[in-house]
């Protein structure tokens, strides 16, 4: 997007994180929509084989977090990592066989979620140290004062198609539009942390559970109808939230693939264009080289 922003005024911070293990308790099972008990992997650790552009659903998984799930051991430092890290930020592996490799942030889910190239990911494991170069919180668009920007790196913003239209609206390309009925767990939480689970995407379950969202892909940019995410996540007629699908398949009821929030404001501030290529893979996946330059900026179409 060719936009006037305050990107040049933003600072970057170097933050430490650690690839966090998957967690379970001694009861093992959780409960699906019809009361079905399940034990399924996907949250925490390093989840292999699912990257931006791949289907979000259709896996035997729950709370599928593609790639590496990253936290910090200290509570306050962890919240700084979660709040300050933005989608598109560069992440460097610091330990283990993949040390030195670069990836990028695709979202938040109470973990920072990092996508690496498959060969890099194969060498990353729980306990590996990573460094996030965090930049983006505070980003503001001078021509769009009604639109709040969050969790969005300036490089990714520059790489995304769209921008200010002749009618003054902010054109944003989205792969899908999501009805307000789909908003599940995550409502009422702050929008700089975790994401908004979308219901109605339980691939293979009953029609009464479907809201037609089974086709979402990891990395899809989506528009959430009747959603105001400027100061947290709430329902509000006449507002829109734009997010990127950063997590996938869930069987836990009331949960599902989730967008991390990027933009929010009055619906009439946006010009939404449906575009199947509106996916992080279109803008970030070419950035696997180890140059250290910002992948979003390097691979703008």
């Amino acid at each position, binding site marked *: 997007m060719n936009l006037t922003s305050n990107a040049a005024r933003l600072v970057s911070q170097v933050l430490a994180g650690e690839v966090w293990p998957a967690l379970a308790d001694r009861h093992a099972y959780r409960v699906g929509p019809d009361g079905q008990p399940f034990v399924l992997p996907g949250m925490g650790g390093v989840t292999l084989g699912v990257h931006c552009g791949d289907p979000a659903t259709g896996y035997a998984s729950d709370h599928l977090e593609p790639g590496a799930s990253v936290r910090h051991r200290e509570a306050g430092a962890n919240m700084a990592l979660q709040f300050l890290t933005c989608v598109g930020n560069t992440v460097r592996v610091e330990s283990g066989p993949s040390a030195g490799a670069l990836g990028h942030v695709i979202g938040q889910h109470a973990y920072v979620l990092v996508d690496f190239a498959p060969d890099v990911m194969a060498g990353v494991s729980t306990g590996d140290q990573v460094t996030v170069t965090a930049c983006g919180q505070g980003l503001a668009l001078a021509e769009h004062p009604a639109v709040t920007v969050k969790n969005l790196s300036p490089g990714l913003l520059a790489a995304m198609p769209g921008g200010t239209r002749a009618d003054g609206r902010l054109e944003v390309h989205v792969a899908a539009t999501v009805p307000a009925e789909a908003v599940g767990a995550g409502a009422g939480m702050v929008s700089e942390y975790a994401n908004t689970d979308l219901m109605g995407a339980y691939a293979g379950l*009953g029609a*009464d559970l479907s809201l037609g969202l089974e086709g979402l892909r990891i990395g899809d940019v989506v528009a959430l109808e009747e959603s105001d995410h400027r*100061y947290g996540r709430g329902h509000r007629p006449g507002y829109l939230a734009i997010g990127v699908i950063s997590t996938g398949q869930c069987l836990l009821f009331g949960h599902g693939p989730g967008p991390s929030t990027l933009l929010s404001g009055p619906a009439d501030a946006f010009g939404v264009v449906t575009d199947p290529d509106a996916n992080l893979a279109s803008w970030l996946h070419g950035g696997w080289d180890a140059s250290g330059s910002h992948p979003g900026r390097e691979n703008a179409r």
Partner: protein
Amino acid sequence: MSAGGTARPPAGLRPVAVNLLGVVEQPELGGTPYRVDCDGRPYVPAGDGGIVLGLRLGESVFARDADHAAPGACLVHPDQAARHALAAYSCIGNLAVVRTGRAAGARGAVLGKRGEEGRVIAAFAQEDLARLRPADQVAVRACGQGWRPPGFPPDVAVLNLDPAVLTALPVAPRGGGTVRAGVRMIVPSKLSGNGVGRPSASWDLDLQIRAGLGAPDLLLGDLVAVSGLDARYNMGYRNGWLTVGLVMHGASPLPGHGPGITPILTGPANALLAEPDEAGHTGLTEAALQRLSAAEVEVQ
């Protein structure tokens, strides 16, 4: 419909009661007092947990400038696992007796519960509430989870209700395998806020409704129906389903939050029928709660 059967105890099993210990909560805040409302204005939350005085059942959820204020005392437990159990097993109408402090001996009743770390809201007479103090101990006679009221169709799940409280609510089985619930209003599931995706046995569901948007007023103690919401286990969207809950805390300025309901009934909309009455509805009243808390407990 994929919702085949309910994985709940079969009918005819006797519920058991357990004495749990609750501790009156002191509200907690972080290093900054501010929260941010849905319009971006900072505010200092008052009434969010602990002992709230002066708030009564039958009052509008929008009557106070407060955050999640509940009419009574919130009970917690210092051990987190015990706190979850307190929230999960306590049911609306359960007897609550103060064991320590200046209000020792006072009898009240559970009005509902709240999620996250878990809180049980206990209603007491105002003079007893005024003598309560955070850290006072309250015994809760928890009973109701797993209970199946006689005459209810199998596909309507009942939860979070003391067996004695049902007669105090406008809920009754009807012919043809249905249950009828009188409610203040029916709201669509897209107004479900905090609580979606969480277990209905221990969380409340915030409704994202605001005062003055043409909606009818909503009172503490009212029953409300949410259409398109299944609350048998976790709460989530299901077309053709209905959930009825009891309003037990007031509105909140936070985005995604609002007046909260403790779910009590959930089932297919052709078996669980909600009859809205915006002007004449009466839900749970203080008089009914007083009768419950005054009743001698049957020794099982």
